[in-house]
């Protein structure tokens, strides 16, 4: 079973009003879209593009909400705030965190899609 810290499945299901198919659909979408957001954040960071970083972090953060990955959400939120402050040095470290956590979430989601919901 997935540790609730990475992915809170029961909450995701609750938010989807019990619609398991919807959660699976959202999972697939997330797997597809989130890498683009993270890449965009990375690129913005590299060229010290504040607006670009904030936009990418904001978008990623939003997409995490229906997925219910609380630690990833917090990190993405932090990344957005650091972007707003223009603190690229700190943002660098947090972005690395986001990438790491995203990999964990991806693994959990693939498992979910392959194996379905735990009974």
């Amino acid at each position, binding site marked *: 079973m997935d540790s609730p810290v990475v992915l809170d499945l029961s909450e995701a299901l609750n938010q989807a*009003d019990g619609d398991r198919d919807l959660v699976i659909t*959202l999972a697939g979408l997330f797997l597809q879209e989130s890498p683009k957001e993270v890449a965009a954040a990375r690129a913005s960071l590299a060229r010290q593009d504040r607006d670009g970083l904030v936009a990418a972090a904001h978008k990623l953060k939003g997409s995490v909400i*229906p997925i219910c990955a609380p630690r990833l959400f917090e990190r993405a939120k932090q990344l957005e705030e650091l972007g707003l402050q223009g603190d690229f040095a700190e943002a660098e470290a947090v972005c690395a965190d986001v990438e790491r956590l995203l990999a964990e979430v991806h693994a959990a989601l693939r498992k979910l899609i392959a194996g379905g919901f735990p009974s």
Partner: protein
Amino acid sequence: MKLNSAKPLVRSVDSQASSCAMPATILLVEDEPITRASMAARLKRFGYRVLEIDNGLEALEMARRERPDLIVVDWMMPGMDGPTFCETLRRDPAMKSTYLLLMTARDQPAQIAEGLARGADDFLSKATSKDEIRARVLAGLRTSRLVRELEATAEKLESSLLLLQTKQAEMNADLQSAASFVHSLLPPQGSPIPGIALAWEYQPSLTLGGDLFDVMAIDKDHLGLYILDASGHGVAAALRSAALMTFLRAENILQMLGSYDPERVLFEANRRFPMSADGEYFTLWVGQLHLPTGRLTYAAAGHPGALLCSAEDPSRWLTRASFPLGIDPSAEFASDRVLLKPGDRLFLLSDGIYEVPSPSGELWGRGRFQAVIDAEKLRPLSATVAACFAEARSWQQAQHFSDDAAVMGLALTEYQEEKSHG
């Protein structure tokens, strides 16, 4: 499922549709695919028809085309952001009834203020509980429906107003032609009958008035004249006046009484025109002028009536206290006599000409009217009559007379003996 985020995605409501005939339409504008999918699913679960779009520009187009009841739009979007979308949409007056819910991750007062200022109706956070989302959407739809009902009512009112205006115009046209008819009954200006000159002016307070006057040849030596005033004004008074005027026609009176003796005319009129149940009545002044001698016999029923203006003497009123017509069925109306000389002027007038108030409320009054008559006595008759109206208007500082105003001036010229003897 692969979703193409560049094209609009239209979903229709399925078995969860609400019981009402037409489910409300919600347009969801969100560029982030997961958020959009999640929110769309939730809104459809509530029973609404949901249209999805991922950018503000296309969303504007879709909004104008589909006229959704409510639009949920994300604040942060590339290209056109949420507030800009709201602002742009609001420029279109046809989109007034669309409720705009702005989705925001933050809820700081400054952001809220900006959102509201730029056209959002309310806010929704992406992390809000589904119950709260549902409540806000419901409230928004309720508002949207109310605004649409108001718009429909306004349209109906507008077409009712147009209809009323058309009817009013038709009625005014009718009144105008009635007024023209009444006008045609009044005596001609100038010298219609040898021995006298006439000049008059009549200003009804509404299109039709209740005052009427006339000068008629009774026989080769006699003229009959009268002025009547129906109480009240407007169409009702005009109709009553027309009835009394018909009675007072020379042919009718002669046939009934054999002469235009003012006492007898008033006596008959008093019997035939009683006060109405509503308290409406006439006042009347009747005179008979014997042209060879200039002898004027006259009697009045409650009418302040006639002003005699001679070359040497100051003007004086020819009337006495008497009941209006129809108040006392057995009333008798005593007549008086006066001798007119060539050059003398007789003015028949209604009280509407002198009972005009100044802006401070003081009435112009008979005294000031008299002063104008005296001051203007050497000018042509028509100029004198015109001066009365000009002075009255100047006193009340207004052009329009709130009560029917009539002044008829009759000047006695040299009596021409007829060549042929009858």
